[in-house]
C-alpha cells in the first residue's frame, strides 16, 4: 500500500505526520520524501544513508559536423530548448523536457543525448524503516522528473509513505498519482481550508480515496470540520495545539519520541487508512 501525505498549504504538518507515521509502524515500512525542493524528513529521522546518486535527465547535444541547419529540431520543440540562429544550433538545456523529439526528427542523425544534473537521490534506513529522498539542485526548476526517481524506489513489499510537496500543481500531482490513499493534513484556518479545497480537487481528478488530519485542531475556527463533513472527507486524526509539540518539532525531534503516548494514535491512524483502502 502506498499512502501519500499532502496538504495544499505548506507548513500544516505533512512531514510531522509522514515521519511519525513511518516511525510508529513496526516493520516493513518505507518513507519516500518527495518534497524535493525542500526535503525535511531526514532532519527528523536521521537515517543512515547507504547511497547518494546524482540524478540526470537526458538533453540534446548536436554534432555540428553532421548538422545541416535544417531547423526541424527547433520546429518540433515546444519548449524553446533548441533553436537555429544564423549558422549555429543553440540548445538551452534548462528548458528541455527530455521528450526526445529533436533527436527523433533530425534527418542527419546529428543529435545525441547527454545527462544534465537535476539533483541527488539518497537512500538509506533507520532501523527497519527504509528511507529515500530527492534533493533538487538549487537554481533548478524542474522538480517532477526527480520526484519520479524517488517514487521509483518504492518497495512493492512494504507499506510506502510519501511526503509530498505543498501546492496543487505538477510536483504534488507527480507525488500523489497512482498512490492508494492520500492523507491530507490541514489546519483549521481560512488559509488551511482554502488550500485544502484545492488539494481535494486534485485528489478527485486523480480518483484516489482520501482522509484528513487536522493539526493544531483547536487554533482557528470550525469551518474545516464543517467542510470535511459536507465533502464526505473522513477526519482520521486531530492534534490539538501544544507548545511542547511545536518545541519538539523545532529541535528536530519526532513527536513519538518526545511524547510516546502519540504512537498508539499513529498506529490507529494507519489502521483506519488500511480499512478504507481495503474496503
Amino acid at each position, binding site marked *: 500500500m502506498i499512502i501519500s501525505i499532502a496538504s495544499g498549504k505548506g507548513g500544516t504538518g505533512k512531514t510531522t505526520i509522514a515521519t511519525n507515521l513511518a516511525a510508529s509502524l513496526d516493520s516493513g515500512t518505507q518513507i519516500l520524501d518527495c518534497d524535493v525542493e525542500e526535503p525535511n524528513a531526514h532532519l527528523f529521522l536521521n537515517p543512515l544513508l547507504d547511497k547518494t546518486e546524482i540524478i540526470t535527465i537526458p538533453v540534446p547535444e548536436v554534432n555540428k559536423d553532421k548538422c545541416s541547419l535544417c531547423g526541424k529540431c527547433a520546429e518540433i520543440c515546444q519548449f524553446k530548448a533548441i533553436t537555429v540562429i544564423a549558422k549555429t544550433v543553440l540548445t538551452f538545456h534548462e528548458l528541455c523536457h*527530455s521528450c526526445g523529439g529533436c533527436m527523433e526528427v533530425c534527418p542527419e542523425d546529428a543529435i545525441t543525448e547527454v545527462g544534465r544534473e537535476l539533483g541527488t537521490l539518497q537512500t538509506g534506513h533507520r532501523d527497519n524503516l527504509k528511507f529515500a529522498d530527492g534533493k533538487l539542485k538549487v537554481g533548478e526548476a524542474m522538480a517532477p522528473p526527480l520526484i519520479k526517481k524517488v517514487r521509483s524506489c518504492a518497495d512493492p513489499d512494504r507499506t510506502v509513505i510519501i511526503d509530498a510537496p505543498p501546492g496543487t500543481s*505538477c*510536483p504534488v500531482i507527480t507525488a500523489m*498519482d497512482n498512490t492508494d490513499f492520500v492523507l491530507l493534513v490541514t489546519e483549521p484556518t481560512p*488559509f488551511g481550508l482554502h488550500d485544502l479545497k484545492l488539494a481535494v480537487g486534485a485528489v478527485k481528478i486523480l480518483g484516489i480515496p482520501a482522509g484528513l488530519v487536522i493539526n493544531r485542531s483547536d487554533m482557528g475556527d470550525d469551518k474545516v470540520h464543517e467542510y470535511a463533513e459536507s465533502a464526505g472527507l473522513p477526519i482520521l486524526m486531530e492534534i490539538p495545539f501544544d507548545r511542547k509539540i511545536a518545541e519538539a518539532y523545532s529541535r528536530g525531534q519526532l513527536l513519538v519520541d518526545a511524547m510516546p503516548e502519540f504512537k498508539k494514535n499513529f498506529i490507529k491512524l494507519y489502521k483506519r487508512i488500511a480499512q478504507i483502502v481495503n474496503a
Partner: protein
Amino acid sequence: MKELIVISGKGGTGKTSLMAAFASLSGNKVLCDADVDAADLHLIMSPAVREQHDFQSGRSAVINKDKCTECGLCRDLCRFDAISETYEVNSIACEGCGVCVHFCPEKAIDFPLNTCGQWFKSDTRFGPMVHARLGIAEENSGKLVSLVRKEARSLAMEKGLDLLITDGPPGVGCPVIASIGGASAVLIVTEPTVSGKHDMQRVVQLANFFKVPAMVCVNKFDLNPDVTREIEDFAEQNGLKIMGRIPFDPVFTKAMVNGQTVIEYDDSSQPAKKVKEIWKRILQNID
C-alpha cells in the same frame, strides 16, 4: 520602482500574514500574489475583481479515434507513458511535447492550447492587486508567476506607484525562480525549527544564485531561541540583513479568521509592533 518578494523556503512560516500586514502599513504600492498554486492573500485582501483574463499556456495531445489506426507509433515515442493501450491520452501525464502529434502517420492527434488558470486585476482597501488562480493539477505555474509579476509592474507604472510587494510561493523550484528573478530584494520569512533553518539556507542559495539581495526575519522566534540565534548567525555570516524577530502569538490566526491583517486586528499587540519595526527597517534597506 522597487519590488520586494516575500519568500520562505518552508511553507507555513507566515509569509502571507506578514505580507498582508506590510500592505496595511505602506502607501503607494501594488500588491501581487505570486503563489499561484495555493494563493491565499485574497482571503485577507477581499479584492474586488476589475479585470479577469484566461491564462493559456502549453498544449495537450488529443487522439481523434476516427482517424487513429492504432499503429502504436505514438505509444513507442512517448517518453511520459501518457498514451494508454486503448489510445487515450492521460492529460495529467502528457507533457505537451507534441512528439506524437508530429509523427502520427494518420495526422490523428490534435494539439489544442491549454487554459491553465485565470489572472485578475483587482482593487483592495490597501490599493490595487494582481493575482491569479492556477487550475488544479495544471502545469506552467512559473509562466503564470512571470505573467502576474509583469502585469503588476505595468499596473504600478500606469498608476505612478513606486513599490511592488509580492507574496511568493514556498520551495526553491520553478515558481520561486520565476518570482525572484530581477527583483529589488527578497524578504525571507523563516521560523526557528530545524526544517525552517534548512529550507531558509536553500532559499538563500537560490537568491545568491540569481543575485537578488536577501533580508531575513524570524517569525515565532521564541519557540526555539537557540535555533533563532543559529539562523541569525547564518544570516550574518552570509551577508544577509536581519530585519527582526516576531514572537509566536495566536493573534495572527485570530486576525486571519477575521479576514484582517494583524495591524488591523490589534494594532497594539506585540507582534503588530514588531511587524511595524520590521517594515520600517525593510524600507530603509531596499535599494
